[in-house]
């Protein structure tokens, strides 16, 4: 008891055996004391009766925890396997109680055990590493072979002298007064400071992550477990350092012929019959073909030739604004010369290009090219239509314009 003493905490009487302390307990109880306690190295059979203690509420707590476990486990198993991601397993129902019993049981026990364990300590207000009783050196025997009874000063009946007499009458050892230690109950500054510091430090990673989330990165994403993520087989357009050009995809071998895509219709493939161009579209011109032609025209032709085919596409315009010398403005599809061309020639132009127009043969299929031809024909027609072209039924509506 080196440092300054605090308020009186309790009066402590020591005993040598179970009988003594039990008797004392009864006496103190009968004297009407409430805030007193018995300390012994092992649980004394029947002491709670001698002290007049009520039974603990612990069992109810444990029951509550256990039930929570049951419900949680059952619900969670249903929700995960039966609802959230319902996979078909061995042709069994998505949720069947039998399969879920074991885990439900285990979880029930787990939570109940937590209830018992933590419940006990909490109800006992443990851990309590500092306690006035420890100030008393003899009190060490409480965990060995000593028995103690302490009446605390906070008891309503407590009166230092009277109480001391009562106790002294029960034991042959001298009753000892036990004082609160002088030091303050509050946390020292350095403890508070360091906890605050730790808290602040903990925010750093958060900040970093937030930054990462809202900023683009030129660096490949962070990635730890890589099994099978990037495999050594070559997928489309991959790289293979072995070859000089670094490509995994290899060019066709000259002169070879592919299987089951074999066609020999010169008109369809080249748009020519012998030397001359065909003027007939070798496919049956249907609404689908027209539709197809329209969309393909929009994809491949509009950029230069413009939506209506007057050669005023956005690309052409941009080239003009940039004053690109090399750029030759695209022809209008409605130029008489162009209109005069046979279908085959338009087809040929699309596939192989002409003058400054690039070849699109490798960008679209034969059918698509013909579809575009069909659409271009329609387009030309639409821009140079005479009244005769309009069906009689529709002519009436022309007048309104």
């Amino acid at each position, binding site marked *: 008891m080196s440092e300054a003493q605090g308020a009186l905490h309790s009066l402590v009487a020591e005993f040598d055996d179970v009988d003594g302390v039990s008797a004392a307990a009864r006496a103190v109880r009968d004297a009407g004391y409430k805030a007193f306690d018995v300390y012994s190295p092992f649980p004394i059979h029947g002491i709670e009766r001698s002290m007049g203690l009520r039974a603990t509420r612990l069992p109810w707590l444990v029951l509550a925890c256990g039930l929570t476990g049951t419900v949680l486990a059952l619900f969670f198993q249903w929700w995960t396997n039966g609802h959230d991601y319902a*996979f*078909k*397993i*061995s*042709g*069994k*129902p998505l949720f*069947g109680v039998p399969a879920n019993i074991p885990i439900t049981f285990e979880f029930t026990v787990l939570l109940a055990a937590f209830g018992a364990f933590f419940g006990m300590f909490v109800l006992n207000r443990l851990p309590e590493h500092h306690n006035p009783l420890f100030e008393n050196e003899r009190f060490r025997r409480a965990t060995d072979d000593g028995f103690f009874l302490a009446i605390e000063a906070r008891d309503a009946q407590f009166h230092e002298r009277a109480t001391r007499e009562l106790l002294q009458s029960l034991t042959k050892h001298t009753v000892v007064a036990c004082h609160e230690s002088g030091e303050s109950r509050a946390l020292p500054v350095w403890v508070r400071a360091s906890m605050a510091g730790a808290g602040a430090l903990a925010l750093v990673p958060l900040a970093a992550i937030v930054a990462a989330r809202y900023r683009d990165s030129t*660096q*490949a*994403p*962070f*990635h*730890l477990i*890589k*099994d*099978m*993520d*990037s*495999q*050594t*087989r*070559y*997928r*489309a*357009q*991959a*790289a*293979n*350092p*072995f070859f000089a*050009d*670094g*490509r*995994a*995809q*290899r*060019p*066709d*071998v000259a*002169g*070879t*012929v*592919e*299987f*089951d*895509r*074999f066609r*020999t219709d010169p008109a369809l493939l080249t748009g020519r019959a012998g030397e001359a161009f065909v003027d007939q579209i070798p496919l049956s011109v249907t609404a689908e073909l027209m539709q197809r032609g329209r969309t393909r025209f929009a994809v491949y032709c509009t950029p230069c030739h413009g939506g209506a085919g007057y050669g005023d596409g956005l690309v052409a315009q941009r080239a003009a604004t940039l004053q690109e010398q090399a750029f030759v403005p695209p022809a209008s599809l409605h130029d008489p010369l162009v209109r005069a061309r046979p279908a085959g020639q338009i087809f040929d132009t699309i596939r192989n290009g002409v003058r400054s127009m690039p070849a699109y*043969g*490798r960008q679209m299929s034969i059918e698509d090219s013909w579809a575009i031809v069909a659409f271009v024909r329609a387009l030309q027609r639409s821009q140079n239509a005479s009244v005769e072209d309009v069906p009689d039924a529709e002519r009436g509506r022309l007048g309104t314009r």
Partner: protein
Amino acid sequence: MSSLIREPSDVSRRRFLQVMGASMALASASGCHWETEEILPFQRRPEGRVPGTTRRFATSIECSGVAASLLVTSYDGRPIKIEGNPLHPLDRGAASARSQAAILDLYDPDHSRGLVQAFEGASYPRSWKEFDPWFAGHMAQVRARKGAGLRILSEPSSSLALASLRTRLAELHPQARWVEWEPCARTNKIAGSKLAFGRALRVQPRIEQVNTLVCLDADLFGLHPAALANARAFAARRRPEEAQPLRLWVVESSLSLTGAAADQRLALRDEQILPFLLALEARLAGGKAADGLFLESLADELLAQRGAALIAVGPRQPAAVHALAHRINANLGNTGKTLLYSEESDPAGVMELGELAREMEAGAVETLVVLGGNPVYDAPCELEFRRALRHVPLALHLSHYRDETSRACTWHLPRAHALESWGDCASWDGTRCLQQPLIDPIFPRRTPLELLGAICEAKLGAPELVRACVAPGASDEQWKKILHDGFVEGSAARPVEAALASFSVPAPAPRALAKELRNGELELVFAPDRNLYDGRSANNSWLQETPDAITKMTWGNAAIFAAETAAALGVEDSTLVKLKLGTRELEVAATVLPGQATGSITLHLGHGRSAAGLVGGLEQENIETVGFDAYRLRSSDALDRAGSLEVMPTGKSWQLARTTDPAVTDSIGRKQMEGLVEELARVRTLADFRKEPGSERESEHESLWNKPVAEGVRWGMAIDLNSCIGCNACALACQAENNVPVVGREQVIRGREMSWIRIDRYFTGPERSPRVRFQPLTCQHCESAPCEEVCPVAATMHSAEGLNDMVYNRCIGTRYCANNCPFKVRRFNYFNYHKAIEAEGAEVQRMLYNPEVTIRHRGVMEKCTFCVQRIQAAKIHAKNEGRAPADGEIVTACQQTCPTQAIVFGDLADPKSRVARLHAESRGYAMLAELNIGPRTTYLEKLVNPHPALEEHDG
């Protein structure tokens, strides 16, 4: 690891270290970040090319002068899979295991990558640039001497282009001589037909016409050049609905695929087939009743089936047997009905290898050009070809691998792979097949055409030459059509009339069995290996690891003994024995196999290569050879069999890498097996089936829960055991399609092979004439799959269409599913079996992978997926066109290649689909149905058609 895994380039320490280094490098390169991929587009994308899609090209591969017509799938211009050409009249879309495995050679790191010149014991890498001018100069000198001392040793080839060059060579170098050598040639057949008809003729069997098929040591479905067509026709004639089903009689010394399919089989010593046939002929000619119920009943049936029978003889049999067979067929009026004759290329005017060897010894050969082949390894041992080569100042060897011969020659020239070459060849029926390259040579390699062209200063390049020879004067359109089809339509050889000459065959004295079993009286039969053939495929790890159809042996061979023989000689299975022929000795492993003729020991050729490569063995890099080299005992006078063999047990034990545990042969195991097999792989006689067609099916047990009713597509499979001949084609197809790894000998011994489809083989019945049952086994995709419910992380679960999905990237590898799979079709990656190929320096090998199938990482489970990548592709393609995939549009790899169409895949929900109809067939049954797991695969009983008189005698 290196000691545990044995696979290309993981074997040798040096490479192993490379691997380690590379993997380290990889790890450090990307660290803990995603590996960013690069995208490298073309400068100009070829027309019709869509990146990431496959295209197919028809081409062909030649083996022993006979073509296999193929359809090769190419992904982004990289050939990744070989299938049969569906248009070809013979192959009809099927491809043999060996032709399919050829794709592996294309990317094999050992497949020769450059020229090597041997000079004073040391060898130096060379380039064509160095070689060409020097060689041109040299040939000029040779030509000045009219080609004196120039010898060309070639494999027999059916190429017209080659033939044209050969004639040109004869003009340029009149003194030069052309030599042909092939360890497993058709010499006997030709000699036989010459004896019978006075000319070289080729037999074209027409099995669809046959009611009684007699195979005398003839493996019509296995090693026969037209095996695929034969097998298909055979399967067709075995259908139960056939009015007059074919009956197959086989007399042979060792079980062949044909023997395994036989209704009546007699195990006879090779050399006793001649007396057997003589006796048969005598009996047919109405002679005295011959001995033996077998021969008796066979003769009766043959007489009854005049004009509908066929006696086929195998290439190992001497000319006399062939001639006799020709005569019997003629007399029975079979000729022209069940078999046709066509012209056979007559090797007249071609120099014998022996003669060449003698010339070489004499130093008469100055320039020897070896086009392919590997004589140093496979020439008759007494020729000492390696020694003879030392006397040849300039020997060039054009070959795929730097093999034994290459290392003994002064020059090794790398030979282009068939998929890199232009060429032509003829299939068995004479149909002219085209060979067009799938990819430009990955390394500077050349074809025999190119080399020979250089020798005789040909004007045309290979493609032009081929076109000029195959289709002279064809228009571009026609030529394109030919290339597209892969063969010239209607170019099959015309049948020829064959007039029988008169000849007589002296009967050898038959021996008594007791005597046969005495040492020195035993016969040793040399048979080409079912996977490695004559050894040319020894460095193909797929073929090395594909279990032999009959012995189920991988990675090596063994001398095959009959049980009695083994007992008599004190030989035990999995031990080493010493074979002694005259002065030559060879220590080989021994195995005991049912159906082997007593006193006859069979040893497969093609093993024990000393310079095959990192897979097949390479002494220079201390990579131990695989199996035992039978050629060491094979001499010119006994190319097919030797009659005076001595066998000495050494007592040393030897582990055979078999995929079915020999422990099955312990007494209780065997007892259990015999009980079960009747249930698992069902066989019935046709008679029984006709009496009572329904096979007893397990009645569906009451289910504890109400099973979900599957609406929509229900994928399923049907496997007809009646058609399966166990040829392994499906196994190879699966291997190539699904990136199935090779694990190596040690791992197979540990029972860790990875094959997704395995062909179970069971023997039942008497030891001498066992009934062989084949049963292809894939994942059965059970409706209530036992594997699914035990997986703790739901890495394997059921798709709406009834596929048992295996999600590699979810699998953590508890292996519980595999334990719970009653079929044991699940495979676990105990190691990273792809390690070597993932390593730096293996960029070329990787080109083989199918990009549509994930490569499984170490520690995950894998199994047959019903080729889900094909299913998805077909579904998406169909849906894009706004329709559902049609029946037969989705074809699994195994189904696609099966020559007998034993495997059918499709939608069970569609009652009109082929698979649904097969499921409904009365022969159908599900394996282990009593477990109530509802397999989606139905097996169809095998129906055998034994001769009534012999049936019970069979026991």
